[in-house]
């Protein structure tokens, strides 16, 4: 498949065929990742800047490993210790980075639209590794790939996304991807953590965890940012854990082979009962594993697209 995109900003840029292409390619990289020597030379000589202005462990490491396994050179730029902290504007940082001729910039930024901001200004490929509350397309692709490896198809599947939907870029991207692939999606949260106009989303909305989980094939738990309580959106964390945290009694309502997912990092005992995170139903570590393969796929597709064109 000729990859027509310069940038990966949000899932809605992609077609279902393109998403499936990512999945089938990622399956080949899963095999690479099981070899004793996990390195292939496809991106030798390419440079990838990892520009993370928000704290991140797994996404950044995942991209770093993905790049290195493809023999690309990866360079990290964090907000602390960079010129951004000295008041340099995002525009100036972007132009400075581009002057060093990277082939791609992977950006994580606290502002929605930041990846698009770079994409509109720079020639190199921009991969969105999470912008504000807006989008986290590589997380959605790895979530989808994790389920695709088990299910093969999303037809007839129902997935419940549980937790802080309002402030979640993962939720937005997961909803786009899963509905595009034919799954039914539910969101379940207290009203204060539902986005405005959620009824315009292609989802079913639940305000009760047991009902939200009833008969579903997968549950995606979201991390609760502790500042939501400070912002007055929640009474206290104890109540959140007791009423909204995913517990075995909720999972008992779901399909018998239900899968439990979480983008991490998890707050054990808050949004998810600890034993569920470690249960056989949990795909949390499979997601991390799939993440490397999906990001290898994406770097490969976006960094070799001109060669494919020629």
């Amino acid at each position, binding site marked *: 498949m000729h990859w027509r995109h310069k940038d990966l900003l949000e899932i809605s840029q992609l077609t279902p065929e393109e998403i499936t292409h990512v999945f089938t390619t990622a399956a080949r990289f899963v095999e690479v990742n099981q070899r004793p020597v996990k390195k292939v030379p496809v991106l030798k000589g390419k440079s990838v800047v990892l520009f993370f202005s928000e704290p991140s462990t797994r996404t950044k490491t995942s991209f770093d490993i993905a790049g290195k396994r493809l023999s690309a050179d990866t360079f990290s730029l964090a907000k602390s210790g960079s010129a951004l902290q000295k008041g340099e504007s995002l525009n100036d940082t972007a132009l400075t980075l581009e002057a060093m001729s990277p082939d791609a910039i992977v950006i994580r930024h606290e502002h*929605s639209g930041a990846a698009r*901001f770079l994409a509109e200004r720079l020639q190199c490929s921009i991969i969105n590794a999470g912008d504000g509350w807006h989008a986290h397309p590589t997380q959605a692709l790895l979530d989808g790939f994790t389920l695709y490896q088990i299910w093969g198809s999303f037809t007839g599947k129902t997935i419940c996304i549980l937790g802080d939907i309002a402030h979640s870029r993962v939720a937005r991207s997961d909803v786009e991807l899963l509905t595009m692939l034919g799954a039914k999606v539910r969101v379940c949260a207290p009203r204060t953590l539902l986005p405005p106009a959620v009824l315009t989303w292609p989802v079913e909305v639940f305000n009760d965890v047991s009902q939200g989980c009833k008969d579903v094939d997968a549950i995606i738990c979201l991390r609760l940012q502790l500042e939501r309580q400070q912002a007055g959106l929640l009474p206290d964390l104890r109540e959140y854990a007791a009423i909204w945290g995913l517990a075995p009694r909720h999972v008992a309502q779901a399909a018998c082979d239900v899968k439990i997912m979480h983008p991490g990092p998890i707050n054990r005992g808050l949004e998810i009962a600890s034993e569920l995170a470690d249960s056989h139903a949990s795909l949390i570590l499979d997601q991390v594993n799939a993440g490397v393969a999906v990001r290898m796929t994406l770097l490969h597709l976006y960094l070799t697209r001109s060669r494919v064109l020629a």
Partner: protein
Amino acid sequence: MAHFDLVVHNVSWQDEVYDILVRDGRIVELAQAGSSTQASRTLDGEGLVVLPSLIDAHVHLREPGQEYKEDIASGLTAAAHGGFGQVMAMANTSPVNDNASVTRFMLDKGAQAFPYGPWVRPVGALTMGLLGQELAPAGELAQAGCVAISNDGLPVTSTELFRRGMEYAADFGLKVIDHCEDPWLGHGGVMNEGAISSRLGLKGIPTVSETIQVARDILLAAYLDLPVHLAHISCRESVELIAQAKEKGVPVTAETCPHYLLWDETWVVEYNTSVRVNPPLRTRDDVLALRQAVRTGVIDILVTDHAPHAAHEKNVTFAAAPNGISGLDTALALTCELVRAGELDFMDIARLWAWNTADIFSLPTCKMGTGDPADFILVDPDLAWIATADALKSKGKNTPCLGQELSGRVMTHVLGGRVILSHQDFS
């Protein structure tokens, strides 16, 4: 034969064609076209519409303090070209216009740059430093030349203090202009709360943050029987509250801006910072409600809320961008767009952009009658021009019109009988 200082031949006014005869800074009369007169200067008004020189009751001129965004001279240049003979400059300068020395500074700067107008009409702060803690000296501000009082941009949260501000300002004949926003509802919001903010992952500002304050101000105005003027109304629910209040005879007046009449929240979809403005662009339904409100008089006047910013300040992510649209250069062309769309007529422009504004804030205006000040503009309502950075006279190029073709241009601007700007040939 009578001699005049200025005669404009064959200009359109209320669908008739007239000659405008001007002497000693005043209109002598609107004579039948083709009158034979002698004049020091004559202008050909063929194909042009005459309108009163416009009054903008809501601008930010940024001087003193933020001259890199705009200064009084550049702001007045934009006003002159945009058709505005008087602009009411908000108090959120640095230092804040909460004392006579800042007011006088603004007036002096304006008179130095444009001794024959356009005129700066300063708006004094309602509270010291706009901090919402203690009242600013409205008496001193009135004596120095302020024409109204406002805490624009930083709404007063204490209803008690706001009440006292309305009462105290009334003793000096000053109206309070209120920026209606509950600053806690939608705190940190950057666009209209709704389906689009939800999709873009941007924090929303709900309409109720405006309507709650509109309701508060109306209740206070009714209780105190004192006037209040509501700034930049943006949504249907506010329009409904104002309509009810006016039916009951509450002394409330209100304004909106061309951008709320033309653009809606869908303009934000690509994180376009030039449409980040507070209150935010709302829905299509709100746009339609506002259009009806300006036609029917529920909303009394139009203003620009001219809020110039430097280019680098808007060249950031949407969440990091400052609020505001630069408006003086484009307001008339955008209003002409509403005329072409059949939403307004030229008499509405005169009413919304001059006469009602003059009534509300006790300012001079020209109603084209004998003895009126000769403050008028000749407009080619369909002349196309490109809003390039050079064509926009304000330092603030922060408008979605930048680079776009607009139709409607001021050809000549006359203030006090004097031609302060003209793109026409004189004879």
